[in-house]
Each structure stands twice: as C-alpha cells, then as structure tokens.
C-alpha cells in the first residue's frame, strides 16, 4: 500500500463529522438561513473581534471551563465544574424577565432574545479577573445594544440591572453564604450597556455555554473585571438609579460599581499592575495589565471627567 493511500488520521477520526458538515453545506446552499441562522452553533466569526493581540494565544477550552468563580456553587474555582453537575438544567425552560423603564416588558426565552437581537456571532475577548489572572476567550453571543434597541427603554432609564437566579435548589452553595445579598446582581450605565463591546454570551468555543460558565446566557464586558460579567441571567431591569451590585454591597472598599480594569488602581489587598495568564502551568506567563484591559480606544470616552481612582 502506498503512503498516499492511507487515510490521514485527522480525516479518519472526523469522518462522520465531515459527512455531516458536507451535508449541512449542501443544504445551506439551498436554504441559506440554516447556515447563517440566527441562533445556530458554531456562529459566524466577527472578524473585527479576532485575537486581540498577536502575542496572545487562545486559552485552552478545558482551562476556561474548569476554573470558574461561581460562588452559588462553590468558593473553589476548580470545584464549580463538578458542583454544577447536579443542576438539572434545560435551556428551553429558561426565561429572562425584561422589566423596569422599558416598553417591551415581557419574559423571553433565550432563543427569542437571540432572534430579537438579530442573531449571534463569535468574538474573541481578553478576560481579566479582579484576582489578577487572565484568559483569552472566544465568546458567542450578541451585542447587548442590538437587544436594547429592540426593547425600547424609556428616556428616564439610566442604568441596566442584571440579576442571576435566586433558586437555592440550583445554587447549592448559596445557603452556605447567608451573609451574601443573593441573588447575584450587577449593573451597567445605559451608555456602557449600549457600547458595541458589551456582549450577551450564549456560548463559548463554538458551543453553548457550559453550566459552570453561566449557562444559558451571561454578560461579557471585557474592559471590566470579570465579576461584572454576571452569569446565568434571569432578569434585566432598566432603572433610573444606580443598581446595588452584590460585590459592591458586600465589600464596598474593594469592589466598586464601575470595576474597570485599571493597572493604576490597586485592589486593597493586591496589585493590579500585572496579570498572570492562566494556562494550568506552574509558572504562568505574567504580563502588564492594560488600561481598560486593552479596550481603551473603545470605552475611554464613557469615563471622561470621571476620577477613576475614586470611581473604581
């Protein structure tokens, strides 16, 4: 047998997938909506948001999906992945309530929100945790601005408040932390929410969001510390007062409302000047943290005239 006659391992291992993809490609040429459908995975890549820096590498999927701050399940980041297994989750049953100063007050399914926002796309963002570690993650979702336009907030709306589930049967660790003002609550100014960077993610790495990363949908604000990117949203409310967020209520001296990534403003207990790019190695690479996590061009205008040392 000649060398050329041997099926390459890659093709052999993916033969079924290749047939499927070939079939889909064929069908897509007949029914274009299948390929560029509003909500199917994997979504189209938005080339404008590719790898943010040529020196960066995409965080490995199993790293990003096995190191999660999700206190509703566990305080241990490595443990959340196993703790969520008990969560009997079905995306189809998930409802997101839209309320407050907005015209289209209603409960939507994830699918409905994605369709309303005009479909999903893939974007690669830097992800910087307030604990001074970072990752680079390909998210799938839609820009929040496109949804907000469709929901038509009233002119009196100045803030957007997000809430996660309050069901203690889901979050098995919530009762262990009675001093926490559950449910997890986050907020953005309306201008921040309308910024083109602000994403509502329904997936990552070309698949739907794993439970530990905030299924079925979460916020992603890449210029802010990770805790702003609230997971498993059940309620989006438009308000005229600045929402009280969980972390700023719990430790106001350490976590502010804005939580913009800022290498010049230290956390009271550690420096924010640099970050460790996690890749499960013993000595992860360290790099200087960028102002607004490298998104200064896109978001600096939002904070003109604001003292960022006071409004951390």
């Amino acid at each position: 047998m000649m060398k050329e006659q041997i099926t390459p391992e890659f093709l052999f291992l993916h033969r079924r997938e290749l047939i499927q993809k070939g079939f889909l490609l064929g069908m897509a040429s007949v029914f274009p909506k299948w390929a560029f459908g509003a909500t199917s995975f994997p979504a189209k890549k938005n080339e404008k948001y590719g790898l943010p820096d040529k020196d960066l590498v995409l965080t490995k999927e199993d790293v990003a999906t096995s190191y999660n701050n999700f206190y509703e399940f566990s305080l241990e980041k490595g443990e959340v992945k196993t703790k969520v297994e008990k969560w009997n989750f079905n995306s189809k049953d998930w409802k997101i309530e839209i309320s407050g100063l907005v015209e289209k007050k209603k409960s939507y399914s994830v699918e409905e929100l994605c369709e309303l926002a005009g479909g999903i796309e893939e974007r690669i963002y830097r992800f910087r945790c307030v604990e001074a570690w970072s990752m680079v993650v390909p998210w799938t979702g839609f820009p929040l601005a496109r949804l907000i336009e469709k929901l038509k907030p009233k002119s009196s709306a100045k803030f957007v408040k997000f809430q996660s589930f309050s069901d203690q049967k889901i979050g098995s660790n919530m009762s262990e932390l009675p001093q926490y003002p559950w449910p997890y609550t986050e907020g953005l100014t309306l201008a921040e929410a309308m910024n083109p960077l602000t994403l509502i993610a329904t997936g990552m790495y070309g698949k739907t969001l794993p439970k530990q990363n905030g299924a079925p949908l979460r916020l992603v604000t890449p210029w802010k510390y990770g805790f702003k990117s609230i997971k498993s949203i059940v309620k989006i409310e438009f308000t005229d007062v600045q929402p009280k967020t969980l972390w700023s209520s719990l430790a106001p001296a350490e976590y502010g409302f804005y939580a913009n990534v800022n290498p010049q403003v230290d956390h009271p207990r550690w420096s924010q000047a640099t970050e460790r790019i996690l890749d499960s190695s013993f000595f992860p690479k360290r790099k200087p943290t960028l102002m607004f996590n490298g998104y200064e061009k896109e978001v600096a205008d939002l904070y003109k005239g604001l003292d960022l040392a006071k409004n951390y």
Partner: protein
Amino acid sequence: MSLKIRNLKSSLFRILLLVPAGYWVYLIGSGSIGVDPAKTLNHKTGEIALYYILFNLLLGILISFSFRFPVFLRFLLMQRRFVGVLSFVFLIFHIFLYLTMEGFETKAWTQLVTKTYLIFGLGAWIILFALAVTSNDFSVRRLGVKRWKRFHRLVYIASALFTAHILSIEKTDLIKYGSLLLSLWGLQIIRVLWVWRKKRITRKVINAKQV
C-alpha cells in the same frame, strides 16, 4: 515501655501527619491540581501549616487543663517539635510559591510595604523560622531547658501575627478561619484564667499550711 514500640508508634504518627502532603503531591503528579497550581498550593500549604500549628497550640492548652499527664498526652507532647518543624517546612513552600506568583522581581517587595497582611505574615514566618532552627536537642542543651522554653513562647506572638495575616487576606473563607482562630484565642484566654486561678489556689493552700 520498650524504645522500639515507642519508635514505631512515633513513626506511624509522623507518616500519618504527612498524608495531606502526600495527597497534594499525588494531585500534582496526576495533573489534577487545576488551572492555577501555584495559587492553589500557596493557599493549601498555608492552610496545612496552620493546622499543624493549631495542633501544637491546642496540645499546650490541653496540658494546662489536665492534672495528670495521661500516656497519650505524653506521647503527643514528644511529637510537638516534629510537628512544629513540619509546619515550617510547609511555610517555606508557602512563601516560595507566593514569590513565584508575584515574580521575584521588584513587585513582591514593593507590595510588602503597602499590603499589611504581608507584613503580618512575614513577621510570623521570621519567628517560626527562629523556632524551627532551634528545634533540636543541641539548641535545647545550648540554651538550657528553661531559656529554650521561654524562647519558644514566641509562638504566641507568631500566632497573633498569623491570625492577623489570615483575617486580613481571607475573604471567601473568612467564616471558617475566623471561627477557628477565634475559638483558639477564646481557649487561650480561658487557659490563662485557669492557670492563674490554679496558682492562686495552690498559694492559698501553701499559706494555710504555713499558718
């Protein structure tokens, strides 16, 4: 009791003490240590060292409350030096891992001045270092039992420092460590009162006899 049985017992006890370390070495070896091994181990080495020191401190408290020394207490008492040195070995790793995380460059040192928990921690570490290097027969002989004992009472200052260190860095597990350390200090206070009362009673008895 023969020396052999005692040696066997103490060897078994010491192996038992090393079980948690073995478990973590196993986790590293099997690659299931997680995404941020240095951070995880930094936390774990600190935690394990804390338990060893608490063991020693609780033993001291137990001894104050017991009128006669049961055999098991006498046995554990003989292990105290080993446990103490072991805790310091963990604290060497604890600091080393912190330095790898924060970078050996300038950063760790500039943070030392601004972050108070680091000052508390380093203070405790220096004291425990001094206690660890004098935890051998040679040092006991050199200093004399009385002076050696007095010197090793520095452990109480160290424990005040590591209490401050832990309570000012911990946020997520504050309740766990807070209750642990608070009960330790509660017991210490009761112990001081108890010893003080016992002394007063013996003095009274002696006085009464003299009359």
